């Protein structure tokens, strides 16, 4: 009995049957079976052997004959006919080419931008094990997610856990330091302190100095190449000294080359954190807030040995919080880990080192690029189908001569691939000119040269070819299936293709969605920039404050407000609109063990007058009330609510904890309630705020009234220098500074604006091409109507009617979709514009106008023809 085991593997036989010539199969298979049957033992080894025997038969003599196609010649012929086809119909070719070039260009640029965004912090060695610690603290009902952590956390992490290879803290001095070398002095915004291991943990390449040793001595500094150039020109800066804030001399121990690196941390100077710690220690000793678990002033980075250790530490972090955090925060706080290469795109916390990228913008950009591409591909498909009539004769003749469907398809595919490849090449060349513009739009320094590698180019052209094939396959199959005997019929199924209608509707749909989006995005951006923030932002100047001026503030202020252009000046710590820090407060009825964390800002007198913010109750700090100096608070309306006071709170008591201490540093009474104003960006709702009086300002806020801005600055500078020579006058216009809060929205609206223009061009030329084909088919009809006396406007209507229906359907679908999309986007903001229904009408109108004018152009051209010419011959 032959069991399954005894017979040769069936699959192998099937395989043999598949590839082997039928006249040989019997003899060969017989031999194989005979030799197999002869074997005494049959097991998997013999089966395997059988397979091997079969494989050895894959030789030319045994293979079935493939059709003897003269591929090379056919290919040559296809190339030639494709080339001729493209040249024959110049309009068709140029429309396709223009649309594709535009679309590929946009995709290429978006691709560059996306890959640039994704490359952030990839250069650190072992970046997969490098994490940043972040904290989340809940207080007074508000959650504060901070990128910064407490200073003692680094050593605690190191002591509590094994598997932590290194911990590095980074700290940015609270006021921008002044760096002096001989007669060169600049304030430097990118000065940081970092732990000793900084350069061995992070991958910033040193062009001078040993990464392990550059930060060993407290009085050392590593500078960037840019800074080396700025202070030392061509000379060698290593070993030279720079003066830090006029207090300390720092020796340059290394130079870092970080100009081309994409990193969420961008620096010009790195000094050892020990130096800053020593300075603090001299002032406050062990009581300094840097030794306490309150102040989240440092960014802390941890390098783990491996992922397993990271997982373990992450699981232990809640216990870590319990062990170290202050009693009142323990229950509502947590620590999180962010992998370093995720920070740029995903992190958006308080106290980031610099504004990060936006993943949602990235997604929107990619989506827009894909949509534009689809639009171009649709043009392509539609035009090819519309051109099918002329092509049909060619196809018919080829068919009559015996061409198979696959040959016809391959001919048409070659044509589309040819078109795609040429647009790919043109787009690549054009990219050289668009990249600077891309850099301007995105505020990056992408260099195309970095991407010009062989493998990238290869991939690019492979992709283009693939896209060409995908775009060409539908019309090619459709046209090749065409029955030869139908070809002579003028009206073919082609002109009524449902697919074509659907594709055109999709084009209009995408255009309408883009138009609506662009209007709403622009309106929202305009709204963010112009909405009444509750304070004056025009004609306001923010001047960087300095100690020397704070000490002499009254005299300084008097001199300044003597200037006729200046209306008022006050000292502040936080620029209105840019946010505040938080401190712990205890209200009159409250408990000291459960303080409320409230945003607080310190100002001088006159703040409400200078910024023009109205009072709801009471008064702002006033020189006429000496007790204001240390016994008064002002709240905003929201803070009154958060503290649980329903009526007028004037006279209520409030206590303020010192930063990082357990001591009450101030007890005071509420003297006034100021009206809510937007002290943060419009992404946030107006929160509570407490105002306290101070004399150590970070900025001066100046209200001026003049059109001659340069003259004002000149005058201000002379007053400034009269009070001190050390610091340069640094100033910004408040409204300009506030604009930077909305750079993301600016980037988005810039790009969407551009995308809409490109989309309309692509869709427009598509309609142009399509209608020209349709019109040319109806030339005779129009001529007869002309003879019978039709009006031109009716001709336009007649020819545009099918398109008008499509526009109408597209609009009806696009309105709810874009409404939904924009609702989603607007939900990112606390304050949004109303979506006006007029926008939808406008979008519909724009598409309609484009359609009617484009088809109208052809219609008019047709009516201009002499009817005799078009009717003479049949």
């Amino acid at each position, binding site marked *: 009995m032959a069991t399954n085991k005894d017979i040769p593997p069936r699959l192998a036989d099937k395989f043999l049957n598949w590839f082997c010539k039928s006249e040989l199969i019997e003899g060969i298979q*017989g031999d194989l079976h*005979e030799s197999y049957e002869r074997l005494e033992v049959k097991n998997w080894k013999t089966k395997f052997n059988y397979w091997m025997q079969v494989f050895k038969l894959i030789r030319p003599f*045994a293979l079935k004959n493939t059709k003897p196609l003269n591929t090379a010649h056919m290919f040559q012929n296809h190339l030639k006919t494709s080339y001729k086809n493209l040249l024959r119909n110049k309009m068709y070719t140029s429309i396709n080419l223009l649309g594709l070039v535009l679309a590929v260009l946009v995709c290429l640029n978006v691709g560059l931008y996306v890959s640039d965004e994704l490359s952030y912090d990839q250069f650190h060695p072992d970046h997969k094990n490098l994490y940043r610690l972040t904290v989340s603290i809940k207080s007074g009902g508000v959650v504060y997610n901070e990128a910064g952590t407490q200073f003692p956390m680094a050593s605690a992490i190191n002591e509590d856990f094994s598997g932590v290879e290194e911990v590095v803290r980074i700290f940015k001095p609270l006021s921008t330091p002044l760096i002096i070398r001989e007669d060169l002095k600049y304030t430097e915004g990118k000065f940081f302190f970092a732990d000793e291991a900084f350069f061995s943990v992070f991958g910033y390449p040193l062009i001078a100095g040993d990464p392990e040793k550059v930060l060993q001595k407290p009085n050392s500094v590593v500078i960037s190449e840019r800074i080396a150039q700025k202070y030392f020109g061509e000379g060698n800066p290593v070993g030279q000294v720079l003066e830090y804030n006029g207090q300390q001399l720092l020796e340059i121990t290394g130079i870092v080359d970080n100009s081309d690196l994409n990193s969420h941390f961008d620096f010009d100077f790195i000094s050892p954190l020990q130096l800053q710690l020593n300075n603090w220690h001299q002032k406050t000793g062990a009581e300094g807030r840097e030794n306490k678990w309150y102040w989240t002033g440092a960014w802390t980075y941890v390098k783990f040995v491996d992922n397993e250790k990271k997982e373990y530490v992450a699981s232990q972090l809640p216990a870590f919080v319990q062990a170290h955090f202050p009693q009142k925060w323990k229950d509502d706080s947590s620590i999180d880990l962010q992998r370093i290469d995720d920070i740029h795109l995903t992190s958006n916390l308080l106290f980031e080192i610099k504004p990060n990228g936006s993943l949602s913008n990235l997604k929107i950009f990619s989506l827009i690029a894909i949509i534009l591409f689809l639009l171009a591909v649709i043009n392509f498909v539609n035009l090819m189908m519309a051109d099918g009539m002329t092509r049909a004769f060619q196809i018919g003749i080829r068919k009559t001569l015996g061409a198979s469907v696959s040959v016809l398809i391959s001919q048409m595919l070659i044509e589309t691939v040819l078109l795609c490849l040429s647009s790919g090449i043109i787009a690549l060349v054009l990219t050289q000119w668009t990249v600077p513009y891309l850099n301007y739009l995105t505020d990056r320094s992408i260099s195309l040269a970095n991407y010009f590698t062989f493998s990238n180019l290869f991939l690019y052209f492979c992709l283009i070819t693939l896209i060409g094939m995908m775009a060409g396959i539908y019309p090619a199959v459709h046209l090749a299936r065409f029955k030869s005997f139908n070809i002579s019929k003028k009206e073919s199924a082609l002109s009524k293709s449902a697919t074509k209608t659907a594709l055109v509707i999709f084009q209009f749909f995408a255009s309408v969605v883009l138009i609506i989006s662009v209007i709403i995005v622009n309106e929202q951006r305009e709204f963010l920039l112009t909405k009444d923030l509750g304070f004056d932002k025009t004609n306001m100047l923010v001047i960087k404050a300095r100690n020397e001026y704070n000490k002499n503030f009254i005299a300084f202020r008097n001199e300044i407000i003597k200037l006729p252009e200046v209306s008022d000046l006050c000292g502040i710590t936080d620029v209105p609109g840019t946010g505040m820090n938080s401190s712990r407060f205890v209200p009159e009825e409250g408990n000291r063990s459960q303080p409320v964390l409230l945003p607080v800002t310190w100002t001088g007198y006159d703040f409400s007058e200078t910024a023009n913010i109205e009072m709801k109750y009471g008064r702002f700090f006033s020189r006429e009330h000496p007790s204001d100096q240390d016994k008064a608070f002002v709240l905003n309306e929201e803070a009154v609510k958060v503290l649980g006071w329903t009526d007028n709170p004037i006279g209520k008591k409030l206590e303020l904890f010192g930063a990082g201490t357990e001591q009450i540093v101030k007890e005071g009474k509420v003297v006034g309630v100021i009206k809510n104003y937007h002290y943060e960006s419009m992404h946030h709702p107006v929160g509570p705020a407490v105002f306290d009086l101070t004399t150590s300002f970070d900025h001066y806020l100046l209200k001026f009234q003049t059109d001659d801005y340069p003259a004002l600055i000149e005058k201000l500078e002379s007053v400034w220098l009269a009070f001190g020579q050390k610091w340069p006058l640094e100033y910004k216009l408040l409204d300009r500074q506030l604009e930077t809060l909305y750079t993301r929205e600016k980037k988005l609206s810039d790009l969407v604006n551009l995308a809409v223009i490109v989309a309309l061009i692509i869709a427009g030329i598509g309609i142009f091409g399509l209608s020209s084909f349709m019109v040319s088919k109806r030339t005779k009809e129009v001529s007869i109507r002309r003879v019978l006396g039709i009006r031109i406007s009716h001709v336009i209507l007649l020819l545009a009617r099918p398109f008008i229906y499509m526009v109408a359907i597209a609009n009806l679908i696009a309105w709810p979709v874009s409404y939904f999309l924009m609702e989603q986007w607007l939900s990112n903001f606390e304050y949004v514009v109303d979506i006006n229904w007029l926008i939808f009408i406008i979008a519909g109108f724009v598409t309609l106008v484009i359609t009617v004018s484009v088809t109208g152009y052809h219609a008019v051209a047709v009516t201009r023809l002499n009817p005799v010419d078009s009717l003479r011959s049949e």
Partner: protein
Amino acid sequence: MGKEYLGEFEELVMLMVAMMKDEAYGLAICDEIESQTGRPASIGAVHATVARLEKKGFVETFMSDPTNERGGRRKRLIRMTNSGKSTLIKSRDAKVKLWTQIPDLALNKI
């Protein structure tokens, strides 16, 4: 038509075909080559060679009657053609001629 000379393995297969007269077919040749010369030959290699020889016109193939073994499949039998016969003889003569010209001494020296 085609090449007039024989490759080494081709010659071996031809000799087997000649030896086995009307009984020559793929597997039998394989076995015979292995038993006579001690070198293994795969079925694929033999069939490929036979196909080549057939193309050169040295052998011809025809199907046998159905057999009991091999699941009732017929064998592809191989027969030598006249042209094959003369080529084989020519090849042998050429080699014998060469062999006779080698003095014993010369061969031993090598």
